């Protein structure tokens, strides 16, 4: 998995690529929780190039969401591929996370 951090119009974007599994999720957790600690108000996660996610990856995002909510921040996903979306749906997390099709939709939300 590769993680890129960028900023666009004062909005933080995490671009992920590759597999998010038990091996890579601790690194993702470190990056995510560092942003939570900084109390970044808006965090956008680009899933377009994510090829796989397991329960440890999902747990990392649930933890991130709870951290963001603790200070009124928002974490917003976009570009979630269908096979990853299917896992969110099954886990009933499609109702918990804010998920949008494109970066524009996410920014306009």
């Amino acid at each position: 998995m590769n993680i890129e951090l960028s900023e666009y119009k004062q909005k933080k974007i995490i671009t992920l690529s590759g597999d998010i599994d038990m091996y890579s999720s601790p690194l993702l957790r470190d990056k995510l929780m560092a942003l939570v600690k900084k109390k970044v108000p808006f965090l956008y996660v680009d899933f377009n190039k994510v090829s796989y996610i397991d329960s440890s990856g999902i747990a990392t995002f649930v933890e991130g969401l709870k951290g963001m909510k603790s200070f009124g921040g928002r974490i917003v996903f976009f570009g979630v591929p269908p096979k990853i979306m299917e896992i969110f749906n099954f886990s009933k997390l499609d109702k918990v996370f804010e998920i949008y099709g494109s970066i524009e939709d996410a920014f306009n939300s």
Partner: protein
Amino acid sequence: MKEFVGITIPSHPKYLSIVRKTTGAVGELYGIPEQDLEDIKLAVDEACSNVIKHAYGGDATKKIAVKYTVTKRLFKVIIEDNGMKTHIGAMQGRSLNDVRPGGLGIHFIRRIFDGFRFDEQKRRGNRLILSRTLHAKK
């Protein structure tokens, strides 16, 4: 003699990608539909992750053996370790409505494998037997 494919990996999370690739290759060889295969890869990955976390308590120096047998009717995966005994009653997972980190892996395993049991004959460690009934193409 029944044919099988087997791999043994160290109990380090970095080798889970090899388990996923092998599961995918075996499934492709036997014509498992793509969406089913994605679910099977996730389930086998989760079962091996559980071995690392629970049976070996995070010790990355042990071994995990994964063996695949496919027949017309069954896709079977046997996952063996030499770690602490796991009891099936302890593997319930959390309610899907209770949103918190953890407890999802077992749901991913059970939703694709209709057979899920530990071989009680194994004296040391665990032998998890997962099986999925395959429906013949019409």
